[in-house]
């Protein structure tokens, strides 16, 4: 495996893996604690519409995905807040409209669509250098926003109603958080594909949650678990010639099961089962 590091594509893959882990580790924490897993899945799948549009217009599909991801994030956020439509219905609609538009656009594009499979299922081994720049740029935005608005995001994740009453702009902050999810989705598309993006947005964070009650530490651990999953998944897929995206995701699930099992064992030792009533 180490001899593979001499290859460009391998070094790109590792960089992409680390960049993806940082984004999903940080944003994934909010997805898990604020319970916005479903809406995040909606953003991920809706972004496929942008990939199709990218093919159709002859631009980098990743940029199309970025546009669709942010638009659907804002759309779903606003529809559920401003109309009487229940949130899951709104999510369901955006989810499928995005996917369907993507399929339509790909069909309308003359010729065949190179790399379509990669956008759907990921292939960390084919990430081009240009995409790494985009990923790095998006990561910087995510880190700057989360660091500046740390206390605000914590407040709206814990208690939106109270936050509104004390006077912070809750709705706008929620929409901003959804936009961060959209940015993370785009960072993750090449690594695990649209279909499995939601996995890296939730599983490393869920595993980290087993070990700490501090949001900051949870982010740090979540990034670490993401990196471990990516590196080990990448190794395994390289050695055994397996689909890299899927291997990474399954590895993260194994890490999660170990974490969850470990936490339950600890609880049992301390005589804790259910929380105090």
């Amino acid at each position, binding site marked *: 495996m180490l001899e593979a590091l001499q290859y460009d594509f391998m070094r790109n893959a590792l960089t992409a893996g680390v960049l993806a882990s940082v984004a999903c580790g940080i944003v994934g924490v909010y997805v898990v604690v604020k319970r916005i897993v479903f809406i995040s899945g909606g953003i991920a799948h809706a972004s496929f519409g942008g990939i199709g549009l990218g093919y159709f217009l002859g631009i980098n599909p990743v940029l199309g995905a970025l546009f669709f991801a942010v638009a659907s994030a804002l759309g779903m956020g606003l529809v559920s807040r401003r109309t009487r439509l229940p949130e899951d219905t709104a999510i369901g609609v955006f989810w499928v409209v995005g996917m369907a538009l993507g399929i339509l656009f790909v069909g309308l594009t003359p010729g065949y669509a190179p790399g379509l499979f990669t956008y759907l299922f990921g292939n960390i081994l084919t990430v081009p250098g240009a995409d790494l720049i985009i990923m790095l740029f998006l990561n910087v935005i995510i880190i700057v926003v989360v660091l*500046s608005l740390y206390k605000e995001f914590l407040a709206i994740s*814990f208690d939106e*109603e*109270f936050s509104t*009453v004390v*006077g912070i702009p809750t709705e706008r902050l929620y929409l901003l958080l959804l936009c961060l999810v959209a940015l993370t989705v785009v960072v993750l598309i090449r690594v695990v594909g649209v279909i499995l993006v939601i996995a890296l947005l939730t599983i490393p964070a869920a595993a980290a949650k087993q070990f700490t009650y501090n949001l900051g530490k949870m982010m740090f651990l979540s990034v670490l678990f993401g990196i471990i999953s990516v590196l080990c998944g990448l190794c395994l897929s390289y050695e055994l010639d397996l689909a890299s995206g899927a291997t990474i995701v399954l590895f993260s699930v194994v890490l999660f099961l170990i974490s969850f099992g470990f936490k339950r064992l600890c609880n049992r030792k301390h005589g804790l089962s259910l*929380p105090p009533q």
Partner: protein
Amino acid sequence: MKVASEELVSLRDVWVHYDNVAILEGINLSIEQGDFLGIIGPNGGGKTTLLKVILGLVQPSRGEVTVLGGAPEQNRKFIGYVAQHILFDHDFPISVWDVVLMGRNGKLGLIKRPSDDDKRLALKALEIVEMLDYKSRQIGRLSGGEQQRVFIARALVAEPKMLLLDEPTTGVDTHMQAEFYELLARLKHKMPIVLISHDISAVSIHVDKIACLNHQLYYHGSKEIGPEILEATYKCPVQMIAHGVPHRVLKEH
């Protein structure tokens, strides 16, 4: 001679409809400095809606709501709000300290980190509710009553002009309820307190004024409410409650 009390909150002919159904009908209410008001009434009678109208979280379909001389949306940050809190995620990664500091978010504004002054106020709030020893504990690891006290501290830390509590004793055992009302008794000298509860007996002992709400406000004034008022509010014959209660609470009949 009656000295004019400063009016903090006023509701004039407030109606709230949801889907053409009237939840609140023609509410007239005035909350003044020195008030310790209990609002009682059956579930579904609009108690929480009344609270949300005061906080500007719900718009009235008719009538006027004034908070501290202005619109609720502008001045609600001066109200210390303690919701009927049910912790959904017992493992939410937040400590008591962080929950209380959250109350300073409005004063701090965006991006700014809490200063030493904010931290001093948080320590003071925790001291008032007697939860200082628990400040590093994760919020889910506390009992219902302890959590409630933390949320009161969170409301107090912003140095509010009044307190608004929604069903504050839900999930709190009777022993802790007595302590809770003692805490309120200490606070009422600093600011008006409005308390919403369906628990008539507990509320009626401790508060100074009672209002009965069942879509309409049936009574607002001192604590001497007779059975007719209670029956109108609860729409069913109410048994007179007497459990070591001072005579002035309920008129003899």
